[in-house]
């Protein structure tokens, strides 16, 4: 074992492979701000995206307040909002326009500034080069540039809250013509922010693919790669090929907004009762197709890294090889391929003909198969295992049923006939939040608890980790489970009054012959959800404290490999030095050689020579 090195590497790598002695010690800026070391960049992404996740969470809490108590000023924060945002938050209550912009920005920030940078950029940066035995990413300076583009995009998105007219309001999907017709520059800021974020992801994707293909250590064949690497490999391809059409569409929507073109604006468009002064001839559906061409692979970008993380943690804490490694690999490749061919299942209600609907339903049903295979392999891996129930494993185990629920509830959405009833209702919100929130985010928590000790040399507190886990699990379900019922009862998305206008109570008061409406039970669920969300927020406090507290006071690891894991990242110093390994490791076996009969230890690292 190489001795521990206590500092994060002190100088950047210009990719020329110079010896450590050639470089003078770098200052603070080069080490922590303008670093080209993948581990530093990974931590930068992680901190940034966790902040954005928290910010997006607060936006949601404000929205949930408004939904439960429309027009009632927000307690405590109300006056602050009124001062910061002016008439949009008059009296401290959310105006409908402000609610819409919070909705649009909650989605945008959570997806593009929160989950994707954390799951894809942060985890890949920290773990990937180490797991394949590489000294760094293939293009370290490009890596730094990607992060900088992400920061710029994030700043632009945040800045848009404070400009006259406020932030974007047309949903995270920014459908034309609404996106162009809304008279706020927030929409323009959104587009420009998206261009920077897309560029960041594209450059990262190029970097990670090149790294995985070119920089694997000797002996690290494709079928010896940890599943985490396969998952990030496919995710990178999804981003590489699916993001550019959205970038093209964003450019066209920007032209519509700024240059008054009519890419997505149809002839005869009227805005505010007046015929719009445009050339017309455009197609709103074109925007939707180009958006969802990215939008669908995007959801696989959200889930695949999570599956990769869960696989690593399950293998490690069951002390058994993962069941069906080959099936996992082929399934993730199949998901990657098929995910480009299903996108219009987000558009069933746009008036598509039966032939088109049948095509997309078929591909959507087919893609559910490899997803189920992956989940099944992970579940079967638990059979007969000596499970170690530590915090990462708890989160990884909870991922399985939570993602399962999210995935299964997607099936009625994949069929045109049932989607007609469920589209744009709270059922959809419940479905995708189950996949991303107690799904992906749990996997990301698991990954943080699991890999942080590699970077800091200290374990996170186990007791508070379990508190974080159980409270999060309970309250995630309190928040999202009722939404299935609400959606099936017909409650639509994006209603700023939480459906009060369509409630049975309002209908009864109107005394009309109106039948139906949302029952009191359904409306009352809003209260449960609000308190569940507040509790969920409180449940994250132990995590945040634990994260920072453990840096200085966490229990020190007893070795460079505290989890007794087989993969390469654990077979080097803590934290890994500049260049990661003193010399290129040689790989002799697959990634999950746990409890191999005839071996003294219950795990055999990938780079341990054959006896």
């Amino acid at each position, binding site marked *: 074992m190489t001795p521990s090195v206590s500092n994060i590497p002190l100088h950047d790598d210009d990719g020329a*492979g110079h010896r450590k002695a050639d470089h003078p010690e770098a200052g603070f800026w080069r080490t922590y701000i303008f670093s080209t070391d993948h581990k530093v960049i990974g931590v930068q992404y992680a901190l940034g995206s966790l902040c954005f996740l928290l910010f997006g969470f607060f936006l949601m809490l404000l929205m949930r307040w408004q939904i439960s108590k429309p027009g009632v000023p927000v307690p405590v924060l109300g006056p602050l909002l009124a001062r910061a945002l002016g008439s949009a938050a008059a009296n401290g209550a959310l105006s409908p326009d402000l609610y819409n912009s919070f909705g649009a920005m909650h989605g945008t920030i959570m997806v593009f500034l929160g989950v994707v940078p954390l799951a894809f950029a942060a985890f890949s940066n920290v773990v990937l080069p180490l797991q394949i035995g590489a*000294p760094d990413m293939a293009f370290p300076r490009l890596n730094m540039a990607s992060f900088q583009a992400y920061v710029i995009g994030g700043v632009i998105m945040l800045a848009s809250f404070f400009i006259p007219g406020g932030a974007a309001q047309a949903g995270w999907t920014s459908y034309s013509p609404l996106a162009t017709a809304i008279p706020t520059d927030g929409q323009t800021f959104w587009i420009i922010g998206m261009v920077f974020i897309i560029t960041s992801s594209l450059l990262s994707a190029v970097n990670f*693919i*090149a790294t995985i293909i070119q920089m694997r250590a000797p002996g690290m064949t494709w079928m010896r790669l940890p599943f985490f690497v396969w998952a990030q490999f496919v995710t990178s391809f999804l981003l590489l090929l699916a993001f*550019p059409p959205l970038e*093209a569409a964003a450019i066209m929507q920007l*032209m519509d907004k700024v240059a008054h073109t*009519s*890419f997505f604006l149809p002839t005869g468009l009227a805005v505010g009762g007046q015929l719009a002064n445009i050339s017309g*001839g455009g197609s709103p559906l074109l925007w939707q197709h180009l958006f969802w061409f990215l939008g669908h692979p995007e959801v696989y970008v959200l889930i695949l890294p999570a599956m990769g993380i869960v696989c690593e943690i399950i293998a490690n804490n069951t002390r058994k090889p993962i069941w069906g490694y080959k099936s996992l690999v082929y399934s993730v490749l199949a998901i990657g391929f098929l995910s480009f061919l299903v996108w219009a299942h987000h558009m069933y209600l746009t008036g598509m003909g039966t032939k088109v609907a049948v095509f997309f339903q078929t591909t959507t049903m087919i893609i559910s198969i490899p997803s189920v295979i992956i989940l099944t392999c992970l579940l079967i891996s638990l059979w007969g295992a000596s499970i170690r129930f530590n915090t990462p494993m708890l989160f990884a185990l909870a991922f399985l049923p939570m993602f399962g629920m999210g995935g299964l509830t997607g099936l009625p959405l994949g069929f045109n006939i049932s989607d007609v009833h469920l589209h744009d209702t709270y059922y959809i919100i419940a479905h995708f939040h189950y996949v991303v929130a107690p799904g992906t985010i749990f996997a990301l928590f698991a990954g943080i608890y699991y890999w942080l000790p590699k970077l800091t040399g200290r374990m996170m507190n186990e007791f508070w980790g379990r508190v974080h886990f159980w409270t999060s699990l309970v309250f995630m379900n309190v928040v999202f489970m009722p939404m299935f019922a609400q959606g099936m009862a017909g409650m639509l998305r994006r209603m700023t009054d939480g459906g009060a206008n369509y409630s049975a109570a309002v209908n009864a008061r109107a005394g009309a012959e109106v039948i139906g409406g949302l029952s009191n039970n359904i409306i009352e669920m809003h209260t449960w959800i609000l308190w569940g969300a507040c509790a969920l927020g409180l449940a994250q406090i132990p995590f945040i404290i634990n994260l920072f507290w453990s840096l200085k006071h966490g229990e020190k690891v007893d070795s460079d490999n505290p989890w007794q894991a087989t993969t390469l990242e654990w077979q080097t110093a803590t934290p890994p030095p500049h260049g990661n390994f003193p010399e290129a490791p040689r790989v002799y076996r697959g990634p999950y050689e746990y409890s191999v009969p005839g071996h003294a230890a219950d795990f055999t690292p990938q780079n341990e020579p054959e006896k």
Partner: protein
Amino acid sequence: MDFPYIVEPRRDTGLYNAKLGIWLFLASEVMLFGALFSAYVLLRVGAEPGMWPHGWLNVPVGTANTIVLITSSITTVLAWVSCQTRQFGRFRFYHACTLLLALTFVCIKSYEYHDKFTHYEFTLANGKFADGHLVEKSRDFNLAQKTGSVILHGREVEREVELMDLHRPEARHLQHVEITIPATGIKKMERYGPWHHTYLAIYFTLTGLHALHVICGAVVIGFLWGPGAKMWQTDPKRFTNRIEISGLFWHFVDLVWIFLFPVLYLL
């Protein structure tokens, strides 16, 4: 640990890192321009019959630009060959040509854009249309207050659709004359900017994005020609690889134009 495969290729892939990197980036660029071409097809197919323009762009000028880019492609590849054969002087010559050709392309494009921005369509008060290049606005010209007049070099037509297809036999014998129109006779005047028609929208967007790529490619090649050429002294193999990579990007830019030219100018 030493950084592998910067210069020498990895045996099983046959590639050095940057070459794989640039091809991956080009794959994303294919999807970017591909989406814009898809938009073009959709907008054209969806247009009202007879209302999709033909002949609005100057074919000889476009052909000249095509030749400019193709020539810059051959100079690029010859610059790389010169690096491989360690003929630095020749490399410098060929890439100087590439840069001059890039500049020429952008200048010609600017001229074309300027031509469009000085071209107006007038909706006249009498229900007819006038169309042509603005020659002069009278000093007191004010459309809102209906004062003054304009002189344009063009023609007057009965219906707007006559301005669309300039490839029709009737349109081939157009006479362009000087027309003076008083402000009182004008209901609306609009430049041939991207807002004027979706054809112009996609034309400006596609060629604008393409021109941006030309400029960025020229900047990179310019850097390697100038300050970046220092690496020739210390690591000629790595420098040659950089010339190859920037060349691959440049060829891609040429490739996009090979499709842009017929699609926008000829069809």
